[in-house]
């Protein structure tokens, strides 16, 4: 039987433990394109969605948004929902309008080359919590 080779992560965090955004960016091989000076911010839970309508129904804030939707309404939705960190998966790029709005709102934006499934798996394994 052939086993899939699993990458061993250096960072192991207990469940429910908060994690610095800097570590998250590292785990996801991510490029921080906004908020480079804010990376010591902590995150405890993640919501992954391409549908902003779903993000707007969340009652909790203090979460990290993972999405493959790269447009200015992603940033607006985060602004309204008090979300301050966004990871753009599937190699989606942040455009200048998004960058400007995110900077105004002290957000951290990270571009990540991984699929949503892979990025979610890595963060879940590292101990970050789902919203539900």
């Amino acid at each position, binding site marked *: 039987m052939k086993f899939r080779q699993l990458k061993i992560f250096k960072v192991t965090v207990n469940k429910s433990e908060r994690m610095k955004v800097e570590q998250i960016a590292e785990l996801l091989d991510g490029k921080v394109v906004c908020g480079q000076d804010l990376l010591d911010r902590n995150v405890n839970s993640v919501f992954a969605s*391409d*549908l*902003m*309508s*779903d*993000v*707007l*129904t969340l009652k909790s*804030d203090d979460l990290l948004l993972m*999405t493959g*939707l790269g*447009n*200015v*309404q*992603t940033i*607006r*939705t985060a*602004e*309204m*929902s*008090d979300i301050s960190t966004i990871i753009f998966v599937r190699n989606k790029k942040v455009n200048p*309008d998004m960058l400007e709005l995110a900077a105004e709102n002290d957000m951290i934006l990270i571009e990540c080359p991984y699929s949503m499934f892979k990025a979610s798996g890595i963060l879940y394994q590292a101990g970050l919590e789902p919203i539900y």
Partner: protein
Amino acid sequence: MHFEYLIEGGNFSKAGTASSLFKKVLKQLNVDPILIKRTVVALYEAEVNIVAHAYNGVIKIDLDTERIYINLTDEGPGIPDIELAMQKGYSTASPEVREMGFGAGMGLPNIQSNADNLRIRSEVGKGTTVEIEFFLKN
């Protein structure tokens, strides 16, 4: 206090500008963060609806120590069946709206779940008025 914002139908790059400005006002006034979130999420959903469906609209907000009253009136196609429009999953949104991450038929139900009061009146071929109310004290 009274606030007014003009909304351009179809201009998706500006959708949310009014909600953003009003959020800053609420923050400056030190309104409870949970109420700020409920208010701006409902306002943003309603603002996106004007951009997505109407030709133009105006948002009028009255704010005092008791309540936040928001009136969104648009000139647009109107809603033929409001009960149907309130159902989760029902949507008439264009592909352009869906590309923005909306149009899943969740906006009006989400406004209702956040607001203390919601009233929608509409005339087909003329436009729609949405009134949303929040109370500052329980």
